[in-house]
């Protein structure tokens, strides 16, 4: 069942001189209940913005330009006894609730979205190291979240729950009375995970969950996330620039570049049937333990500035495979299987299918072969036509 | 010849390369500064006062010798008792004389005095600010660079001690010891106001010295003095300018307070002295045209310094 449907979402940042940064540009994807979905890309590609925009946590100059974020769940006030949206709410044209009971988070007001945060969608922020307030006890910070969304809970019970949560992520319950500075980095990360589960959300956004940690702890944290997912059946939206992390934990993923999704599909498909020049480049630049002699090749050039971007494929300037067409407009998401099988470029109808935004999806074999060669990337002369 | 020329060119080139980023930084700094309307307003006020200070004669309607009714010297009469009785005279625009901000009880034009006093305020502000920067910044640099050594400890203890002495009474003692001239007041203000500079610069230096380029300079065998003045100081200078501006504002206000207490050189022309005089001659509640302008002038100049200082802080603040 689809938990989250992001539909044609565009997010922008207003800049002083009346221009706007198109941080997320017409992005669509679905997240199924209980799955782990990855958003991968270089820094500045809009993945974090995308994640933050889901629950309105953008910086003050960021705003959702257009699109919908359909979420299977609704505000406490609009719920019936079973946790489904009331029919009256669905029928009300002023309320952003769809016939199937999904609510458009993008249309909620600031105070409404606050009810959604943490209760429905929790978030593990980019630097969990700084995510704990240094002046409050860790346990109290968990309790705070519980009491915010379940105000009728007795304080003692909330406290017990907090300790319980800590225990589940492998922290002794009595450490609830400690302050953040008394925790190690990994413990802080786990404490944040525990906190994220405080209100039993259906979805967890993990923004670079492992960035600041050493490899061993990284691994433990990833395991922790998987365990949590198994236990609670929560969907996890993982955001990372580390494609290897993604490979490890994601069921499905999307590769982002310049505010656009370049390729999306099942993780296995993306790794094994890579269908986008950008993804190919990205893969080249990451080591894989299995291939010992792999040479790392990074994509030359820098990501584009997204301030009022020009027409054309976002990746074209760095793409060794760019053709004339790439300069006219950004390619739509083509169905990869369709292209391979029939050689035709067809826009994917299903968000869940393996999709790729490239005009040369039909020439995948050539591209894949060339992409493995180092000189393809290094010797390219990028002409601006 | 040719090689020489190319050498020339390469040195030129090198110089250009070396200076270009600095110019660029300056230019971008300036454009960021002008984004702050507050800073621009401050700069405007500042420029007006500088002009007043440098060319008072151009702006003031009269000379300081001018006396109401009599005009400019040499006088052909003395003030009559009736005329004296009308002093301080409220603003007058030609009848019986021209004094747009009125006169004080001696018949001098308030506007004239106001404009001629700008020099004193600018002098005190800039000199005291500069002086306290010159003391505070090097001490802060040294203290920060030798952080957690006995040098740092000594300087910090000294700062602690100076903090224990209340500013104004201490200034009174200094002025009493050294006399009441403007120079001594400036020294007195500087002696007591370098503390903040020192502490802030120390903190900044402490963090700067952990930077990699300082580390590499150390590894390369640069002397401590070189590292401090060549590598660290250029980076704290913008911040010290910010504090210079704030110290300047503080100095101007401190001088006014001293003047109020009767401890400033009253033979000089200054806004503080103007306020002191109105109090001394007892017209505080009678002659608004004499009370308001010097206070406003003081306020605006001090504010101009604060405006410039805080806008610069925004510009130099890496977080913004």
């Amino acid at each position, binding site marked *: 069942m689809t938990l989250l449907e992001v539909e044609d979402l565009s997010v922008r940042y207003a800049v002083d001189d009346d221009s706007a940064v198109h941080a997320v540009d017409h992005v669509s994807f679905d997240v199924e209940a209980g799955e782990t979905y990855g958003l991968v890309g270089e820094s500045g590609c809009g993945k974090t913005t995308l994640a933050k925009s889901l629950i309105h946590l953008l910086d003050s100059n960021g705003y959702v330009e257009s699109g919908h974020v359909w979420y299977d769940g609704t505000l406490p006030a609009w719920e019936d006894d079973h946790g489904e949206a009331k029919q009256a709410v669905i029928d009300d044209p002023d309320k952003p609730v769809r016939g199937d009971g999904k609510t458009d988070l993008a249309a909620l007001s600031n105070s409404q979205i606050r009810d959604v945060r943490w209760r429905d969608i929790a978030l593990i922020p980019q630097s969990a190291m700084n995510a704990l307030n240094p002046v409050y006890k860790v346990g109290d910070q968990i309790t705070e979240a519980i009491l915010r969304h379940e105000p009728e809970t007795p304080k003692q019970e909330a406290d017990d729950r907090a300790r319980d949560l800590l225990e589940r992520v492998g922290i002794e319950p009595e450490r609830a009375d400690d302050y953040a500075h008394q925790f190690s980095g990994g413990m802080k990360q786990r404490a944040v995970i525990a906190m994220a589960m405080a209100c039993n959300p259906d979805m967890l956004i993990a923004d670079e969950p492992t960035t600041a940690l050493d490899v061993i702890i990284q691994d433990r944290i990833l395991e922790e996330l998987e365990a949590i997912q198994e236990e609670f059946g929560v969907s996890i939206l993982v955001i990372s620039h580390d494609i290897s992390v993604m490979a490890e934990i994601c069921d499905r993923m999307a590769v982002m570049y310049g505010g656009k999704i370049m390729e999306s599909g099942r993780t296995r498909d993306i790794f094994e049937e890579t269908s986008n020049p950008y993804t190919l480049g990205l893969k080249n630049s990451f080591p894989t333990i299995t291939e010992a002699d792999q040479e790392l090749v990074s994509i030359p050039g820098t990501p584009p500035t997204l301030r009022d971007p020009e027409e054309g494929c976002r990746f074209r300037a760095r793409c060794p495979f760019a053709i004339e067409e790439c300069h006219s407009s950004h390619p739509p998401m083509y169905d990869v299987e369709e292209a391979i099988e029939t050689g035709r470029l067809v826009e994917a109808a299903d968000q869940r299918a393996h999709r790729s935004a490239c005009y040369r999806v039909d020439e995948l074999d050539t591209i894949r072969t060339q992409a493995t060669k180092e000189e393809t990337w290094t010797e390219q002369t990028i002409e601006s036509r | 010849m040719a090689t020489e020329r190319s050498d020339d060119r390469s040195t030129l080139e090198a110089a250009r390369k070396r200076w270009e980023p600095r110019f660029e930084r300056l230019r971008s700094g300036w454009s960021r500064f002008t984004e702050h309307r507050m800073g621009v307003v401050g700069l405007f006020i500042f420029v007006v006062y500088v002009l007043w200070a440098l060319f008072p004669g151009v702006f003031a309607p009269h000379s300081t010798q001018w006396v109401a009714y009599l005009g400019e010297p040499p006088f052909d009469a003395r*003030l009559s*008792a009736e005329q004296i009785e009308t002093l301080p005279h409220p603003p007058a625009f030609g009848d019986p004389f021209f004094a747009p901000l009125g006169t004080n*009880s*001696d018949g001098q034009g308030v506007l004239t005095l106001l404009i001629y006093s700008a020099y004193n305020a600018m002098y005190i502000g800039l000199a005291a600010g500069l002086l306290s920067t010159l003391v505070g910044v090097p001490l802060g640099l040294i203290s920060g660079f030798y952080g957690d050594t006995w040098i740092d400890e000594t300087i910090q203890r000294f700062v602690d001690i100076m903090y224990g002495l209340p500013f104004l009474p201490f200034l009174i003692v200094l002025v009493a010891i050294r006399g009441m001239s403007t120079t001594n007041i400036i020294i007195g203000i500087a002696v007591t106001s370098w503390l903040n500079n020192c502490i802030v610069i120390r903190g900044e230096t402490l963090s700067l010295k952990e930077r990699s380029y300082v580390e590499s300079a150390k590894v390369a065998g640069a002397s401590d003095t070189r590292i401090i003045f060549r590598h660290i100081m250029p980076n704290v200078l913008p911040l010290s300018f910010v504090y210079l501006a704030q110290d300047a504002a503080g100095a101007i206000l401190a001088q006014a307070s001293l003047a109020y207490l*009767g401890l400033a050189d009253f033979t000089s022309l200054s806004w503080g002295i103007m306020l002191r005089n109105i109090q001394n*001659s007892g017209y505080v509640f009678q002659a608004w045209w004499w009370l308001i302008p010097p206070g406003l002038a003081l306020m605006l100049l001090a504010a101009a310094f604060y405006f410039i200082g805080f806008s610069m802080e925004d510009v130099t603040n890496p977080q913004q």
Partner: protein
Amino acid sequence: MSDNQTDSGRRRFMKGTGVAAVSLGLAGCSGGGDEGTETTSEGTTSEGTETTESTPTEAGSAEDIEEGGIFNFGMGQPPNNINPIASSSAYSGVITDRIYESGAAIDPVNFEMHPNVFTDWTSEEMDETGDDDQPNVRLLFNVRTDGLTWNDGTEFTAEQVVWSYNYLLEQMPGAYVASLNAIDEVSMSDESDWDCEMILNSPVGTFAFDQFGIPILPKHKWEGVSDFSTYQPYENDGPVGLGPGVVTQYQPDTSIEVSFAEREGEYNLASLPWREEVNGIIAGGPFIDAMRISVYSSESALTQAFLEGEIDSLYDNIRTSSIDEVENTDGVELVDGFDTGYSHVSFNLRRTPLDDLPFRQVLGFAFDDVYWVQQLQRGYAQKGDFVMPPGYTAVRPETSNNAELLTAPATNAFDFRQGDSPGAVDVDGVRSFLTEGQMITGEGGTYAGFDYPGSLTGVTASQTEPKHEYTFGPVESSVLRQSDADPDQEIRVDGETITSINDGPLTMFVDPPQDSPQMAKMTENWVSMLQQIGIPVEQQVLSFNTALTRVYSEENFDMFEMGWVNLSPFATNTLYGLFHSDNADDHSVAEGDDEENNTSTSLNNPMGYGLFEDATADDLISTARTSLDTEARNAAAREAVEKIYLDFPTMVTMYNVVKWPVNSAEWDGFLGDIPGPGSTYLGVQMLQVHQAGSGSE
């Protein structure tokens, strides 16, 4: 020093020398101030603009007066303590003078001494001589015990007076040391007609004022006090004295109440017969229940409080700027009075060319008194001449030949020499006065374009010939070259510039707190005039205490300005204290352990007048001091005053015209046309002030 009317006067006299430096330090206070008005009393001539005249209320008789009411009084400084012999502050005197009484009292109108605690006295020279070959003098006096008790009700006896004097002789408090130094012993008298006797080691003409002016302390309170300076009377159920008041509230920094209604026991000193005979005095007070004293920290606050009716009167003058406002306000009035002192600029006679009389006199020619008195002081001041204020007519030289006070030509010898345009100095006239070797010695003649009829008392200046030769040459000193005055020539003294003689120009010390705006303008104007003549002078701003040290302790100065208040109406001790060589430091005596020069003892004659043969009035002053005969004493004093005028060690710049503000809607009985009506003679006022609408007319 000593020489003042009352003990409070003594304190204020010292104030000028820096004792009450506090008062001058911040709030700007009396003494050569910018306040003042013209007076129109008999004997003085109006100099300023006519102002609304307020006349003192006609004295009524005590029987008609309805008693009661609380008089609110404001001061600009707190009394530091209310210990009558330890305090040196005039503001303490406002309280202690209501509590303590002394043997004799002074008539505020004609300054005769009258019985007070002592009913009568006599003096006789003895055969023995004291240390300085002066004959000893025995004073015999009777003590009033009828109708007088201590203010706590304790009985008062003559033995207590003897105890009090002996206690003071043992303690030697600084405030009374001059008077006490002259006393050899005090005891109960063997003579049947007299209660007590006092032996003086030399004749003191003003003994009734000096020795009988010392407050009498209660034995039953002070007997166990071993160090007078640590005694806190208020904490010991006091202060107890013979005066009319008792202190009923004492918040030293803010508020004090002196109650007259709550005094225990009898007090009849206010109804002594002599009081009834003095014009304007109502005998029989005090008529008010209490006097409440509030302390304000600034003069503006004080003035403000008066104008708003918070206080009924304040200590001394109201500031010039508020005079109009007071005059235009209903229910308040200004009581006119005379200054008790003068403002002056004094010169260091040890320095060249200040050691030469013609040069000093030229300094006077350049001082624009019209600008000073009329414009800067707004006419609320009188032009200065002699070192005795015009209120003390008996000792002014005019008295010797009935000349007009202040305006007689002989009193204007050193007036401003005005040139062609108003307010400009007659440069040529003044220069030729110097180059021609002229000098005003007391002989009549025309000096720098001004006629002078000759001295009033017949004295001549001590100096007979100019000491230096004066010429004028090109401007060399930087002070003059940079000066706005732009002189065309500079003076040479015996061929040298003053700058090279003195290592710099002559320096005029200006002290900021006192009248700073006016004083600054005056100095600026004066310095500019001198520079126009070609004399290199500059001004230097010093804080009051710094100036005091430089002038009075170190005698390291050229010229300074300052003011005196509360001089003696008899002149003798004023002249002695300020102009006798005894009180000038010649720096020959080393002091302290390791000091080479005496630079820490303050002496009141920093000019060094009297130290030199050609600038001294020592003889005349000594005659005046030791003469027991009043007329001889006054004659000598007048001559001394004029001699000092001619010798010009001090240029008297002005006398204040006192305008004492009072709430006339509620109060009546104020005595005007006396010196210091709201300060020196506040005691007289408090005894006779009463609620308005009763008693008078």
